[in-house]
């Protein structure tokens, strides 16, 4: 790394494990400059308001009765609060069913992605062979194939395999598409785990597989969390192949369900805003719970590039 060249002693000692202690420094060093602190708060809050304004406006619309949606003077706070839009979405549309499907598909995708990409990532991280580097590049290059052009050929394959309109078709595709990215992130993460631990374990007579299961996986928890989150967001929001490869409500996912609410001749704005709000909830909840691990996972991976 660059800074090791510039600051050899400091950099090395830090890399060897003092990184985790950075929290101590942060707490100890209280910034006395109140003005700049207030400045930071102000900027953050302004940014937050600007970024959130479309979302807040959408939520506000979802809580208004129909005749207050289009008004020449905008009201951010609904004059009358109603829950009918949400009730209509939950009771009268198949969207709740789509939520369940999406959750199952995302969960299966995460499991499958972790299952196939963590061993690969481990090998890529530990191997110095040229062929491995080329393989990794080939993996990454599949991320560059425009997804659109594979719609027809994949549909042909999936229909021959009788996989159309099942959870599995989406799980297989999402896993395949997320794998290169996940392998790459996990690889960077595993590279930060010191080799010495495994080597001593190998000398003690553990098999490579045991080392992987008992040492590498537990140590790469945050990396796995980070990958899971990114995979979750990608699969939760995927639209084009979801609409192509599924055809019934039994397996349909949320983005397609959302799009189906848009009529040809008219659009019921209130319920649609309610549905859009609802559709972000699961991912949001996940974020609030997992963000610590997500950031931690990326922290380790990130510096290694």
């Amino acid at each position, binding site marked *: 790394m660059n800074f090791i060249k510039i600051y050899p002693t400091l950099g090395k000692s830090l890399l060897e494990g003092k990184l985790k202690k950075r929290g101590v420094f942060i707490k100890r060093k209280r910034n006395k400059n109140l003005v700049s602190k207030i400045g930071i708060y102000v900027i953050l809050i302004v940014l937050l308001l600007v970024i959130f304004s479309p979302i807040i406006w959408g939520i506000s619309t979802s809580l208004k009765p129909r005749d207050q949606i289009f008004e020449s003077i905008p009201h951010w706070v609904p004059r009358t609060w109603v829950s009918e839009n949400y009730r209509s979405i939950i009771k009268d549309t198949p969207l709740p069913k789509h939520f369940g499907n999406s959750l199952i598909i995302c969960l299966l995708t995460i499991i499958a992605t972790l299952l196939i990409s963590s061993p690969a990532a481990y090998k890529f991280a530990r191997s110095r062979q040229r062929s491995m580097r080329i393989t990794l590049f080939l993996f990454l290059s599949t991320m560059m194939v425009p997804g659109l052009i594979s719609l027809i050929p994949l549909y042909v394959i999936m229909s021959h395999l009788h996989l159309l309109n099942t959870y599995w078709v989406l799980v297989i595709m999402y896993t395949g598409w997320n794998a290169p990215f996940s392998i790459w992130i996990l690889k960077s993460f595993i590279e930060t785990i010191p080799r010495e631990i495994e080597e001593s374990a190998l000398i003690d007579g553990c098999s490579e597989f045991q080392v992987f299961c008992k040492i590498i996986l537990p140590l790469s928890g945050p990396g796995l969390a980070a990958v899971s989150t990114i995979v979750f967001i990608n699969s939760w929001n995927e*639209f084009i192949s979801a609409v192509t490869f599924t055809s019934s409500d039994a397996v349909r996912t949320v983005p397609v369900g959302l799009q189906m609410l848009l009529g040809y001749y008219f659009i019921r704005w209130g319920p649609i805003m309610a549905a859009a709000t609802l559709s972000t909830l699961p991912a*949001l909840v996940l974020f609030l719970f997992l963000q610590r691990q997500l950031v931690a996972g990326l922290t380790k991976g990130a510096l290694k590039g």
Partner: protein
Amino acid sequence: MRKSLTDQLWILPAAVLITFLTVYAFVFNINLSFRKYPLYSDIRPFVGVENFRTLLADYFFWASIVRSLKYTVSCTVLAFGLGFLIALLLNTKIRFRGLLRGLFLVPWVLSLVATGILFKWFFQEPDGLVNQYFSLLGIRILPWFSDPALAFGLIVAAFVWRMHPFAMVVLLAALQAVPEELKEAAKIDGAGVFQSFIHVTLPLLLGPILVVIIILSLWAFNTIDLILIMTRGGPGEATNLASYLMYQYAFSYWRFGYAATIGIVLFAVNIILTLLYIRILKPKV
């Protein structure tokens, strides 16, 4: 030899799946790109490189490539800039940092469909919310979706709005990994905040910065959904990116052969970007 064979076993599941999903599709499209394959005809004659020759002479395509590059650059710079700014602000010692960090991640959670709907709803003309405020404040209202430059700006804004949390989260993670001792050492050496940032923090972040930039630019270059929902390439050709042009040829003009040709060229452009990326990060990969 045996060692390398077991090595490959570890990679096998991923390799099989990825190959299964891409190789046939890729071969199918290579084949298609040498054929004339319109919807209205049931024969698909082999036409050699005619599609590629047409593409070379296709003014629309090259204009859209230029537009795509413009879009990619502006999206990447802005999403990166905004993400970096927020990351820097969140990396200070303030309260509610966790909560704020969580909140700033929210736009990333929104699906592109929802993003498109919200943006259309927000910037509607002549009397959407933004314009209503403009006229209340006495500012000239703007034809958001009718003016080519503004419409282009809007799809950039929508991309930046949805994708900047990715940049933010990666950069924040990297920033938090910068050892505090280094900054202190720099301070002792007499460097100001700005100088310490330039000379200590930035060089350390170079790796993550490049990762974010390249990934953002790949996402931006391949944007389809957002344009489909917001502008469909209009007004005029103002928001017709190369990726969307491919979509149009495939599923709107129904010329699969030509669409596949565009797809192959876009793939090549993407590969060039990746090579650039691999090259820059070579010591690390």
